[in-house]
């Protein structure tokens, strides 16, 4: 077999190859664009000047590159985590549109709980400092679990399509949150809570990135090497076969949405801890679409049954790097969404399998 045929076969059999290549390409272009920009800003009159070889400016260039990467990863860590959870949902044959609203609901509740001003519920009960943060985080995760479980129960017991259920809860979660938060604007968060994201390691704020990558590793193992993970694939591949094999299909589905709820809750707290506030009308909106886009670019089929956590990680990175590249190149923000959309469609086109005999 010649080289071209071998490449073609690999391309077909490894759905992630195309995404991986696209990502590498994007990163290369991005680095080049950054370097040009950097050189221009440093010595506008001598674009191709030897000054780059100067150690100082080289160090500055490296520093800028690292900062840029840190920002990319930081800004995408929340969506990245949600996309990891969404991978499970989509592999199971479902969809969860409510993640963005859920993020707001959890974020709001946690802030109301741990606000250090008098309005803070825990503060008014006399609980402050570390205990307040621990309780706040625990209740936040619990709320995520409950909201996710609510989706899961309606979907599995009520036999309502996930799209409809989560479309409904998407509206409900945000609307109810906004209603309750009308009079509770402006919260001061304890440092201990902020440190969830802001604690510096080696002089850099990298914790959200570490959470994201750690979660990716954990969920990778869960998907591939646990009974729950394999059952998720089984349910998504053929629900009837799964049922006839004695798998508790309803329980698997419920757990998938509950897991998503918990991860969304975690992402919400990481985001609130970093930013220190939350706009209840707009925070998290569009996250569901970005998460779904990441999952799809990562080679997971909307029909369920196949896909991977690692692919989703690549998917999120691809979107992130592209967005960054467009910003660097000065593309109008209104146009960036179009590129995002194009890349989703292109990814699916590239990964589509050869017509089966």
């Amino acid at each position, binding site marked *: 077999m010649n080289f071209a045929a071998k490449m073609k076969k690999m391309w077909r059999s490894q759905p992630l190859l195309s995404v991986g290549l696209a990502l590498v390409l994007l990163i290369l272009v991005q680095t080049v664009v950054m370097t040009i920009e950097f050189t221009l800003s440093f010595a506008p009159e001598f674009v191709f000047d030897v000054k780059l070889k100067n150690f100082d400016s080289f160090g500055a260039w490296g520093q800028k590159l690292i900062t840029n990467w840190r920002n990319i990863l930081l800004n995408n860590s929340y969506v990245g985590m949600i996309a990891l959870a969404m991978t499970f949902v989509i592999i199971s044959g479902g969809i969860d549109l409510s993640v963005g609203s859920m993020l707001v609901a959890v974020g709001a509740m946690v802030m109301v709980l741990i606000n250090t001003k008098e309005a803070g519920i825990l503060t008014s009960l006399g609980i402050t400092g570390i205990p307040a943060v621990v309780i706040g985080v625990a209740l936040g995760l619990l709320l995520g679990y409950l909201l996710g479980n609510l989706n899961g129960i309606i979907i599995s017991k009520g036999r309502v399509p996930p799209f409809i259920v989560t479309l409904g809860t998407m509206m409900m979660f945000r609307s109810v949150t906004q209603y309750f938060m009308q009079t509770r604007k402006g919260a001061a968060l304890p440092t201990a809570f902020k440190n969830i994201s802001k604690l510096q390691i080696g002089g850099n704020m990298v914790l959200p990135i570490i959470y994201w990558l750690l979660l990716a590793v954990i969920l990778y193992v869960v998907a591939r*090497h*646990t009974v729950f993970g*394999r059952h998720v694939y*089984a349910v998504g591949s053929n629900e009837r076969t799964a049922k006839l094999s*004695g798998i508790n299909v309803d329980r698997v589905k419920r757990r998938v949405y509950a897991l998503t709820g918990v991860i969304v809750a975690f992402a919400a707290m990481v985001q609130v801890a970093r930013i220190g506030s939350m706009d209840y009308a707009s925070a998290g909106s569009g996250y569901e679409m970005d998460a779904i886009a990441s999952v799809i670019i990562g080679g997971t*089929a909307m029909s369920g*049954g196949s896909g991977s956590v690692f692919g989703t990680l690549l998917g999120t990175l691809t979107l992130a790097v592209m967005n960054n590249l467009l910003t660097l190149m000065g593309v109008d923000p209104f146009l960036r969404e179009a590129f995002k959309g194009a890349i989703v469609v292109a990814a699916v086109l590239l990964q589509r399998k050869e017509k089966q*005999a």
Partner: protein
Amino acid sequence: MLKMLGIHKAFDETKVLQDVDFCVNPGEIHALIGENGAGKSTLMNILGGVLLCDSGKILLNGKDVRFLRPKDAMDAGIAFIHQELNLINDLTVYENIFIGRELKNRAGFVDKKEMIRRSAALLERMGVSLDPNTMVKTLDASYKQIVEIARALMMEAKLIIMDEPTTSLTDVEIKVVFSLMRTLKKQGVSIIFISHKLGEILEICDAYTVLRDGRVVRSASVENATADELAYHMVGHPVRTEQLQTGKKHGKEILRGEKLCGRGFENVDFVLHSGEIVGFTGLLGDGRSELFSAVFGAEKLQGGKLYLEGIPVRIDSPIAAKKLGIGYVPRNRKENGILKDMSILDNGTLVTLEKYSKGVISSRLQRGEFDTMGKRLRIKMSSAAHKITSLSGGNQQKVVLSKWLAAKPKVLIFDNPTQGVDVGAKEDIYDIIVSLAKEGVGVVILSSESQEMMRLCDRAHVMYHGKCAGVMQRGEMSEYEIMLLATGGREVKA
């Protein structure tokens, strides 16, 4: 009429067809037989324009033709009726017959009246009483087959390819389809008939061609041929047809049903002892599948009592059935049996995953058990990590079976265990069923093949319209008796 000469086809490096010659005469019913993976489907897909051949010629009425798309083949008068029927369930019979070729009236709207009229006329000419306005989803499998044939005739097909048309049909329904095939033959239509059922080939076909490992091993007239001979050519060695005895005294009672009622069946009694093979047969829609779906908890049992080892039990879900030690290998493997996206290993260990896991699944335990199972069942595969869809039908069925064997059930229910399975794999599956019974498992077999009942079962229940029409012991069974009971030809015993 049709000549395919020197056809070669390879997928990557696997040669699927090598120098195949295949000829069909006008008004001939020509059987194309061979084990799964012998290349039958590939050959027919080439003829139907689904695949392109690497080299070779297709001559239709002496003219050299080349089909690049299914539509080219259709335009040339070749209709392909796939094993999985290509009907749209939510449309009516006439809409399906005319799909893609709808008639329009002068205003440009679809001409319903004319389509209904022509469909009715065609169905009448075919000798079928079927209202063209019926929704397809309400039809039985045999009538769906008939609608497919009607569609082929409506586009004036001269050659119809029928891929295993009878696997989901009952004996009576098969007769309906056969008489239609004979009518078509008289009108000069040629039919290529793909089937694993050798008896049917002898009954209906004029000529046969046997493929083995991508080559034609024999092509001859059906006259004077015997089933043994056909089977011999297919597998390349003689095939057993003798009865399979468990040769062991049956143990204690394991499963007993009393006056079981549910959707599609009523007042059925049965007893199953350890080491016993009990069969349920009848026509399609006789209620046996519904009955055992309900016993397994996949459907609702509306009345009656179930006893497991003498103790009354309630089984309201497959989860409960699994816990009690009841296993179920369902019919329609594609819809109910396999997970098409997953590996052979995942499929073969699906039921017992918990067993290998302490938080994280030990792939050593999982692989170990599956390898043992794979050897016992003689599953032919290059690697358990490949997708299950890379296997032939027979091997897929063995994988489905292995997931339940791993659970070591007390009772194992098989619904149509040899559906779409070739002769060799069929014998392997029979061997496994007999060896399970020898180990003391109580086996229930649901099948509409009387041969299967007679060869395997210690006792056979014949169902008719949801009721048990009669019970026969081994030795009392004959195809005639079974048919008589299954068609309601004998009064239901009180």
